[in-house]
């Protein structure tokens, strides 16, 4: 057979194969509305769960979400290449003013950041403020240092150097953690500051939450900051931290919600719980936001989006806990639901 004939045969069979694969999938009825979102990677598992459940319940609405990072999410919103965005660091006022018609942010869920560690034989560890700030400033260098030992009487801490693991890539997790450290320590605030990519004075770098988790789990004597969901699903031990009231609190749904309750949400629904005062509050907790335009030209999209957010704020919250997130307090749900009315069609 000549090359031409062979190539034609190949192309035909290729097209046939593609057609077969496409047709054996789930039969799509004509989808009316397709919504595209992009943004933070922290809530991505939860969002993906929500959108899939929602799509199977409503056959004519397809919602897609891709984690590209909070910064990229905001950029996509500014460029109008998506229908909605998501960010762990909310949105700066100067960015919000760049969008014609304005944006509305909705807190969708919340999560805690925990300090995971790898110490053989140490089942529970308490870290005082002085200890964990000192560790990340590079001042507390060994596990049996007095700052660490003081809060853990009866626990034999090994004489190992502390191997600190931080994020190599910019991320909302780093932003929230460094924001908290800046709130509790002047020295950190002046030296490093709150940033998606803080200039950590010490630490080996790993990419992504999964990279930090892997590094901590495989290197003895390590400590690193990861999201609660990762620690929970991978069974990585994490420390109880001292909060503003002086109590040692472990991350959990209850302690997370206590932290969130201590902050009242203002009109624009953006608030930070960088250093909650309540005695049962876990000190490092953050909301994560969905960014929607205030005006949509497509009425179907606007309608679908409103229903989607209502779903997320009510039924969706029930799935948050199993995935490692903190369900929103009722007051927050009420405020956010009211704000949905701000999304209008042009």
């Amino acid at each position: 057979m000549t090359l031409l004939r062979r190539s034609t045969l190949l192309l035909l069979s290729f097209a046939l194969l593609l057609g077969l694969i496409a047709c054996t999938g789930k039969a799509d009825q004509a989808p009316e509305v397709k919504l595209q979102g992009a943004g933070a990677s922290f809530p991505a598992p939860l969002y993906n769960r929500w959108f899939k459940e929602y799509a199977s319940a409503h056959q004519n609405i397809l919602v897609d979400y891709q984690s590209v990072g909070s910064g990229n999410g905001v950029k996509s919103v500014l460029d109008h290449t998506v229908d909605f965005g998501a960010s762990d660091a909310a949105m700066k006022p100067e960015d919000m003013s760049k969008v014609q018609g304005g944006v509305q942010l909705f807190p969708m869920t919340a999560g805690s950041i925990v300090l995971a560690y790898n110490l053989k034989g140490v089942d529970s560890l308490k870290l005082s403020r002085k200890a964990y700030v000192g560790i990340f400033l590079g001042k507390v260098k060994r596990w049996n240092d007095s700052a660490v030992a003081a809060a853990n009487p009866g626990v034999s801490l090994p004489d190992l150097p502390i191997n600190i693991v931080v994020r190599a890539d910019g991320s909302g997790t780093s932003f929230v953690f460094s924001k908290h450290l800046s709130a509790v320590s002047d020295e950190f605030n002046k030296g490093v500051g709150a940033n998606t990519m803080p200039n950590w004075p010490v630490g080996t770098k790993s990419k992504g939450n999964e990279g930090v988790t892997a590094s901590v789990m495989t290197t003895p004597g390590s400590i690193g900051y990861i999201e609660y969901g990762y620690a929970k699903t991978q069974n990585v031990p994490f420390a109880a931290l001292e909060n503003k009231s002086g109590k040692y609190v472990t991350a959990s749904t209850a302690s997370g919600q206590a932290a969130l309750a201590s902050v009242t949400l203002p009109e624009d629904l953006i608030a930070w719980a960088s250093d909650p005062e309540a005695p049962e509050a876990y000190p490092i907790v953050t909301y994560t936001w969905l960014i929607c335009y205030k005006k949509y030209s497509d009425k179907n999209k606007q309608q679908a989006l409103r229903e989607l957010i209502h779903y997320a704020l009510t039924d969706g919250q029930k799935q948050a806990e199993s995935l490692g997130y903190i369900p929103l307090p009722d007051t927050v749900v009420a405020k956010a639901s009211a704000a949905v009315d701000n999304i209008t069609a042009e």
Partner: protein
Amino acid sequence: MSAGSAAPPLIEHGAVFQARKGEITQAPTRGQIFLDRAFRRTCFVFASLTIVVVTFIVLRIAFAAAPAMRHYGTGFLSGRVWDPNTERYGILAEIWGTLYTSILALILGTAFGLAAAIFLSEGYLGQAVFNLLKGSRLHLKPFWGNLPDQVEMLLKNLIELLAAIPSVVYGLWGLFVVIPLIRPVCNWLHLKLGWISLFSTDLSGPGVLPAVIVLSIMIMPTVTAISRDALVAVPPKLRMAAYGLGATRWEALLAVILPTAARGIFGGVILALGRALGETMALAMLVGNSNQIQLSLFSPANTLAALLANNFPEAGTREISVLMYAALVLLGITFVVNLLGVVIIQRASLAHAE
């Protein structure tokens, strides 16, 4: 050119030559000349398109980098701190990391790649299979007779398969397999020979060596595939002439075949170097992302491409301009390296001609 015998009519093609219709040698018809001109013009257009595209890309990046260039100037190239908070940026550590990892990976990748290409082009495996088949006298049967060629093809495909593995997978493989594997060896080297600057730190995870190992594996298939094609294209009569003069296999290779194929091999090396300079994902996971400048193979480092990969998603509008500046520097490094390559080729061909 024949002076025609009987039947076919003589065709006049101006003053060039005469030919008869149906003869092997014929001047082109008017239609064929037209097609020829049209096709050549089309090729020229596409070649210019390539130049336009590359220029466009470089200009766009330069444009995006302009604000940062104005703000930071050349201090950007000698600074070592990357701090978005205080807006101090410097990429000296990344420039060092890019050059260090790429050159080491190039040496390693070219060595193994060229060895594999020689192995493939000399047909050792086919020979071995043939000898095996000869032993059981199957070598002349229809199915078994094809086996040596097919085994050679299989080996060639296997090596090219290395190119098909996604870079994310290489990163994960490096993290889960390579680092735990080399950690005991590296730490032993650091303990015993730590006074040599190459081993002066210990391997606490990602670092230059794991990155270099994985990078060299990634660029190897490029070198092998292109070098093999170059070696196979050497005219057989050159080979036979060398053997006829009494050369051993390797004397023929080193003195005759490799120099003849050198241009093709060098082309493959340039492509491999380009890939090494620009590799993003795998290095972002394996190089350690730390702004250090050290000769030690075990210390973490950072490369320009990894810096881009790690910082781009979360970069604010100011930081993007700085990152574009870094990208421009990377293109500049590629430019300089290729310029050096051209100079080397020119020098080598001059020396060859003498």
